[in-house]
């Protein structure tokens, strides 16, 4: 890897570790290999969002040409968000694509992602199903997103969400994969019949 990339990542790594946000447990990075080509990021779900209390893991790959090209980032934790694929975790965020600037850092990227969680852009979607739900039934989207955060991101559970758990459990008892059942239910407004049909087809 190019010298400049390694030197910069080392510096940025220290920057994140020492940052205020890290002290408040909002963002975190750790190394995966010694070459600084792959890192693991973690962001906290922002308060007053369905993701509150959740911990979202990110896969960060540093290209050879960093910082002249953006790092490749995707969500490892499954998430229900209009700009993040619920299947692959791919992120649709301009700064990670054509709006990248060489002066951006791991810290600014992680903070941008956190901001993306609190302010979705449904008109520039990555996941069309989620974006449609976000625009048409905002309340249901919020409940679904919260449920996903509780299921996958260790967000705290509350009593009133039991309805969704029951539905997922019912489908799981029928022999369907739990994650597939959850995805089908989420995509079909938690309608058991349509979700089952989707799973069978």
């Amino acid at each position: 890897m190019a010298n400049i990339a390694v030197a910069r990542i080392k510096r940025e790594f220290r920057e994140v570790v020492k940052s205020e946000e890290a002290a408040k447990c909002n963002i975190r990075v750790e190394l995966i290999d010694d070459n600084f080509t792959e890192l693991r990021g973690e962001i906290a779900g922002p308060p007053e969002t369905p993701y509150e209390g959740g911990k979202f893991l990110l896969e960060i790959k540093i290209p050879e040409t960093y910082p002249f090209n953006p790092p490749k980032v995707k969500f490892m934790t499954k998430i229900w968000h209009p700009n993040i694929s619920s299947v692959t975790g791919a992120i649709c965020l301009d700064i990670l694509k054509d709006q990248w600037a060489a002066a951006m850092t791991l810290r600014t990227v992680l903070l941008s992602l956190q901001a993306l969680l609190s302010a979705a852009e449904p008109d520039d979607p990555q996941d069309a199903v989620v974006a449609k739900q976000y625009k048409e039934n905002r309340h249901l989207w919020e409940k679904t997103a919260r449920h996903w955060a509780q299921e996958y991101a260790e967000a705290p559970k509350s009593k009133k969400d039991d309805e969704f758990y029951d539905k997922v459990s019912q489908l799981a008892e029928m022999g369907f994969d739990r994650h597939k059942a959850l995805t089908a239910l989420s995509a079909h407004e938690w309608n058991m019949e349509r979700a089952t049909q989707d799973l069978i087809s």
Partner: protein
Amino acid sequence: MAAATPREQAWTRQVLCRFFVSGVCRYGDTCRYSHDQANKAPPVCRFFLKNQCAFGDKCRFAHVSSTPDEPRSPSPTFQPKERKSSLKVKLTDLKSQETGGRNETSPGLSDTKFSWSKWTDAAEFVPGQPYRGKIGTEDEEASKVDLEETRKLLCPYAMMGSCRYGDRCIYTHGLLCELCGSYCLHPNDPAQQSQHMEQCVSDHEKDMEHSFAVARSKDIQCGICMEVIWDKTPPSERRFGILSNCNHPFCLSCIRKWRSARQFEKKIVRSCPECRVKSDFVTPSQYWVVESAEKTELIGTYKVALSKKPCKYFNQGKGTCPFGGNCFYLHAYPDGRKEEPKPPRKVGGSDGRFKIMQNYNLWDFFEQRSSRHMRLNDDDELDGESDISWADSDDWLDELLFYYYSGGDDSELSDFDDD
């Protein structure tokens, strides 16, 4: 140093050229020294004197023992204490100055007349040959004038703080300049004094400016590689790339690399990576410059410097430069005539960028074919960056060809017509 005066030439002509003697003089007939060995015996071989000459009879130098009246030292070093009166040596007489009066002469110099002004004209000492003192006499008047002139000159040793001759020095010892700390004010020349003071003050101001610039620059970090720019290795990397429209520091190589990135839109890479303010060009600088007056001056100097360099794309009229008369580099024909400045034509490309169209005559065909995808725009996308590469023009051609061969499907382009 001025050219040799006839007088100087006269005496050098009397000294045998030591290169000629060795057969290697490259000046030939134009040599300032004598190439005439006829009336001078060839120099005695110093190796023969030590019984060490490897050439024997074939040696170019004379194999004769020294005559009694011309004793030679076997070693080429000059030994003043063994001087003989027959040697006609006229020494520089630093020795006589050391020992006190100018009338006191050492025993070896009893038959030479000492002159204060002549020592700089002393003949050259050639190792292995007897020291040939200056031959011929000089005009007494001339030497007096010389002496007067010499007395007026400032002593360079005293200027630096120590002249070993003190009050007895033939040169004038200057007064102390408190700004520069050297004894360089001529006591009898007020004009020289004020001139020197002016020079000193302006030097001092320059020094101050320089140290401010250093203090300002030394800890500045590049926003891209994030290293302290003056700590980068190799030292050639320690240069700032100053953006014209914002004040974010980058090292020259980083910002140039960013601005030449092909994977992003021009709009993105022409903008500052920190604040996204667009700058049309980058100015190299050794120091970090923020203040606007200083920055304007720097950019002005840079443009002036570039405008003297011939543009390699214009190539004295043989080539074509897409920037035409607006190019930062010199567009001059071989006869010195400059190209008329005219605004380059621009078109909006299919990707929303604006390309400069001037002089692309060969491509007019493609232009016509694709003209409905394009529109003229008055936005200025001129970039005079020195390291710009024209690889972009090829991209542009590719795009046109693509649309030509794909049947000119303009569904992808239609939104450019109404924005």
